[in-house]
């Protein structure tokens, strides 16, 4: 195997072992790797965003679409944040980011998120008895969890029982969320370990 090919295989393996070593102790190798990851990540982000800006902004501008000069100027305004005397200029850039973001979000929030969620939560009767049972359980969980967040009345009697049930349901939900998080970590470590195993064994 040529030296270059050997390095292509072993440098990532050594880097990976260095990364995993953080589980056991923090050392200079890990910290160096951490900086390297952040640096290369930033490099990729700058390069791909520059490409996106060139494709959608600068290239059409050169082609004669002069209106695009405005968003580019407002984008440049954002960088004035780094000059203390002219910090206020950055606000003109953020104005578009925040106002534009809010406008775009509000447009689809009712039709996309709020109404379908309410309709779905109210749907108890399903096409099969199993669906109806599921709908009933969902409705109970929905209502009991809501009652947990009623703070204007003391949690006593029916409200107290409902709030306690709601808290239990939330705990089940959080537990499920945590278990799925662990599954992601399993998959991440598994992907790297299989890669390393097959590389070392040459499979």
């Amino acid at each position, binding site marked *: 195997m040529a030296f270059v090919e050997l390095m292509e295989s072993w440098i990532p393996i050594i880097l990976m072992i260095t990364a995993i070593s953080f589980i056991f102790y923090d050392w200079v190798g890990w910290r160096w790797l951490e900086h390297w990851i952040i640096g290369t990540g930033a490099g990729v*982000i700058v390069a791909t965003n520059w490409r996106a800006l060139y494709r959608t902004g600068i290239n059409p501008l050169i082609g004669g679409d002069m209106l695009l000069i405005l968003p580019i100027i407002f984008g440049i305004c954002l960088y004035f944040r780094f000059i203390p005397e002219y910090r206020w200029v950055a606000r003109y850039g953020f104005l578009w980011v925040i106002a534009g973001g809010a406008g775009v979000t509000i447009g*689809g929030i009712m039709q*996309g998120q709020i109404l379908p969620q309410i309709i779905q939560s109210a749907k108890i009767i399903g096409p099969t008895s199993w669906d109806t049972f599921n709908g009933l359980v969902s409705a109970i969980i929905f209502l009991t969890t809501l009652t947990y967040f009623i703070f204007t009345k003391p949690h006593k009697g029916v409200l107290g029982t409902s709030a306690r049930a709601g808290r239990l349901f939330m705990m089940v939900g959080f537990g499920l969320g945590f278990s799925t998080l662990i599954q992601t970590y399993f998959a991440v470590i598994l992907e790297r370990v299989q890669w390393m195993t097959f590389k070392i064994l040459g499979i």
Partner: protein
Amino acid sequence: MTSSSEENTIWDKLMSIPDNAIQVVFLLCMIVPLLVPMTIPYGVTPPTKAFYDTINALPEGSVVLYSMQLIPFNYGDCAAATASIFNLLLNAPNNLRVILVFPASDGPLMFDIMSADYEILMPEWRKYGEDWVRFGYYAGMEQGFATLCDDMKTIFPSDYFDNPFDDLPMMSDIKSAADWDLLIEVTSYTAIVDYEVRQAYGRYGVPCLFAPAGMTVMSIIPYYPHISKGFVMGLSGAAQLNSLQGISGTLVDLMGNSFSFMTLEAFILAILGIVSGYMLRHRRST
């Protein structure tokens, strides 16, 4: 104070298993199934089946926007699902037209790595530009995606390989989200799912299917099944989707099998830990 006989019950012993022993068993559960043919049989979950059925039930020649938020962090969980779904889209009997886009800046790079690592079954008759098109990364998250929904050409005047938008035959009748029949998103970032629902489903009524990483699945559950008819959850979902497609012996299956052993070990340890903890607490209280 407890007596010595009480301290040596099975529950005490279970609670004092050394961490190193657990880690070694965990490592074995990971590596041995990769090297030795051993399988835990697994079923296909209803969301994965629904995901598969929804794609196969699309009308002939439907347009699918396939968005992939592949980043180094979620690569282990999402790459397998990305490959499996891409294979399904390319080989579905209804000749789907597929558009690839990336909401994360690392996406195009990670897609190339994924294509090299996992087996992409590209049929010979599938032609680039006519049956599938690969665009690049779109900047701006929700604002960028909203523009993509309104006018694709504004965001992508050219494809990833710098072919002008107008030169791509497939895109001649696909201009905006109104021309999409389905949106598929592979992601580990909840915000992307939310803004796609707002923009594509909310404003244009485009049906969605999601393939979340394990850690994101709880955030897409509220959209299932009325907006997302099904979902494929990370690596385990990818292995199930492969079995539905009749694909076997690939890296996805191998990893899915290993994943089953790891999950089984974690499940057994969790049950033992809960029972032991409960028993010890019960003993202390009595």
